[in-house]
């Protein structure tokens, strides 16, 4: 489903590609696809409408800067508007502080609490954790087990009923530590007594930060919940959890817009190490289901690094395994080749489907196999005879079939590049395209 969605978004972008003036119909279509993409990523519907209105107005009213084409112009606006929404300053300062965790049931507060403790600990801070979840059975066991693994003191009372008392005692017990994180019970905005409890906890702890934990899968409800939490305790940062699934985290975007704060961390995985600082580019790419938007926005010249790949040789159809190796290496960081190809202004040109058919695991295998080749083989793949092939396979711990598959893939890539050269027919600047291609990496 989403693939078709991002495909239509890309189609809309392609339609803008050749244009010299901003075409109202094309912009409208793009905005419509953008709306669908954002809505299926769970961004609040009202927010999407406001956002797309701003994008439409700006795209049509603003003059494209000199030297950029219409597509780059519109994309830049899309990017800027999206970043404006999620990118508030959320510096995590390494200084003594108290952090109060808030969120719905099952959003991952306790796991995230341990992850944040680990984050500060790794930065050399003295960290302590208070378990103020007196409701859910096993909550204290869970937090103390996680804390034990990373050697962080965890204060709590599995038998206690009064969260305020535990926190009061905890603050005293942990007063020598620099960073104190208070994990609270899951609650939602309609539970008035629990909201009152967190207001009290906020007063009691005089928390430096009040972070709202949002499940990446949370839907339209995110805005409402975030607003209520914000009204109650003044949320100053949002943490998105469970980003290792397929959810896009649009709910967190709504929450950020609602609380006028920023996204602090992203949780993606079940161990205490799986916590990342927020990166707007990656987040937006995921939201829209397309490749790195900023790479698209930055002009080809800025991103260009022609040394990486011998463009002229490739133009002549000399595309060696070595080039492919570099490509795979870069692709590893960039995402599947399909995404990269889709960023290129190639109009409606169709590439053979098989080119895309390389999964990331396969790419890793391919690189390992290529590591077992000699320099000469990399430069001149036709050297690879069956005995060489056997040797490569043994060296890489791969089967000869795998090596053959790699060579087949290489030949397909080579053909594709030759085909590109043929199809271009001077219609657009091939040199520029290839520069871009390498620039992307």
């Amino acid at each position: 489903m989403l693939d078709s969605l991002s495909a239509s978004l890309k189609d809309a972008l392609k339609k803008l590609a050749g244009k010299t003036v901003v075409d109202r119909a094309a912009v409208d279509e793009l905005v419509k696809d953008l709306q669908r993409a954002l809505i299926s990523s769970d961004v609040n519907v009202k927010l999407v409408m406001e956002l797309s209105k701003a994008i439409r107005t700006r795209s049509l009213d603003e003059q494209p800067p000199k030297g950029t084409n219409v597509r780059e112009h519109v994309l830049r606006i899309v990017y800027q508007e999206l970043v404006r929404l999620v990118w508030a300053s959320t510096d995590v300062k390494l200084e003594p502080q108290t952090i109060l965790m808030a969120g719905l049931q099952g959003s991952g507060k306790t796991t995230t609490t341990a992850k944040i403790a680990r984050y500060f600990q790794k930065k050399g801070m003295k960290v302590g954790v208070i378990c103020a979840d007196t409701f859910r059975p096993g909550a204290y066991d869970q937090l103390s087990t996680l804390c034990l693994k990373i050697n962080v003191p965890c204060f709590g009372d599995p038998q206690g009923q009064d969260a305020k008392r535990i926190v009061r005692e905890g603050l005293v017990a942990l007063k020598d530590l620099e960073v104190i994180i208070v994990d609270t019970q899951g609650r939602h905005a309609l539970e008035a007594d629990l909201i009152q409890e967190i207001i009290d906890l906020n007063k009691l702890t005089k928390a430096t930060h009040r972070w709202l934990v949002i499940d990446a899968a949370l839907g339209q409800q995110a805005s409402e919940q975030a607003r209520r939490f914000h009204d109650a305790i003044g949320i100053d940062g949002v943490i998105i959890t469970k980003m290792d699934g397929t959810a896009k985290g649009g709910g967190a975007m709504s929450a950020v817009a609602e609380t006028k704060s920023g996204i602090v961390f992203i949780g993606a995985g079940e161990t205490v190490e799986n916590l990342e600082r927020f990166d707007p580019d990656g987040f937006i790419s995921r939201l829209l289901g397309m490749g790195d938007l900023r790479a698209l926005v930055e002009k080809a010249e800025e991103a260009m690094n022609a040394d990486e790949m011998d463009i002229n040789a490739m133009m002549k159809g000399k595309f060696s395994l070595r080039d492919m190796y570099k490509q795979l290496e870069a692709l590893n960081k960039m995402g599947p080749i399909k995404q990269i190809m889709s960023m290129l202004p190639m109009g409606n040109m169709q590439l053979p489907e098989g080119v895309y058919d390389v999964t990331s695991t396969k790419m890793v295998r391919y690189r390992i196999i290529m590591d077992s080749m000699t320099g000469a083989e990399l430069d001149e793949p036709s050297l690879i005879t069956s005995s060489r092939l056997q040797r490569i396979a043994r060296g890489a711990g791969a089967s000869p079939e795998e090596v053959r598959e790699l060579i087949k893939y290489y030949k397909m890539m080579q053909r594709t590049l030759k085909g590109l050269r043929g199809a271009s027919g001077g219609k657009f600047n091939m040199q520029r395209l290839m520069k871009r291609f390498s620039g992307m990496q």
Partner: protein
Amino acid sequence: MFGGLRERLQGARNRLASSIGAAATSQADAAGTDAIAATAPDAPVLPSLAEKVRIFVVDRELVVSEKDISAALSDLEMTLLESDVALPVSDAIIANVRAGLVGKHRKIGESVDALVVRALKSALLAVLGKGFNLTEYIKTHDRPVKILFTGVNGTGKTTTIAKIGSFLKERGFSVVIGAGDTFRAGAIEQIDVHAQRIGIKIIQHQAGADPSAVLFDTVQYANSHKIDVVLADTAGRFHTKANLMSQLEKIKRIMKPDLVVYVDEAVAGNDAVVRAAEFERTIGADAVVLTKADMDSRGGAAISIAHTIGKPLMFLGTGQAYSDIIPFSPAEVVDELLGGGA
């Protein structure tokens, strides 16, 4: 939980009804003038119009055209999207309603409202299916009935098991719980406390043990003690983790559950569709439990999931107490959504 959706749907229904009503008036006007024009030599121009007139005059019916309702339908689409019905699902519902309305002949005098409600109702019922009566199922199947609970992290599997355990115990069934979440810290303690509170036997190994073994033991226990129902907890897992999904397949192979219940939360957005489809594809699901329904008055996820995997909703979790669980009955919900009227 469907309160919000109800308000919205009724709004949409009013809009649809009024736009059809308006179309009807204009058709009536047109028919009036045409009737006069018919006496003139170059009578009715458009055959479709003539057809309309014929239907209007002879059959005393009106035809609903696509144009009459398109604005109202896009309102309805917004309504569904804002209620967390996933995009592909709301597309399907809109198409269904459109198909149910466009081209339909309506008797003059039959209320517009009735027509709209019927279309909406059939569209929603088509999506929500029949529901699932667990007690009936247990009564009609060989004991022990083994129920395996699956789902992604943090949807409330463990709490749901406690609730269902207490629900079944109240209805006179004997129950045993298998603490199959051996991964998450504190999970065994959590379900152990629940089991003690509701007075149900629990089978557990230590943390990190093979969940298949725990659940196998649970089934063995149920067999030898003539227990009616086995409730098998599992660790939350994402459908993207291949090894965890194959662990689940192993569990399924070993404990041979009669029912696989997929647990998700009512507040989930579009991803609900993706992961439900993936769970259904890999290990299958026979019924769905939707938790945290008290958080969200809209309930779009129920519609999304039911539409995607076509499996009945069994229970709604509506709070933190053991009694906060209600059997789901689609017809009642749809009636309530559309105000029961007509």
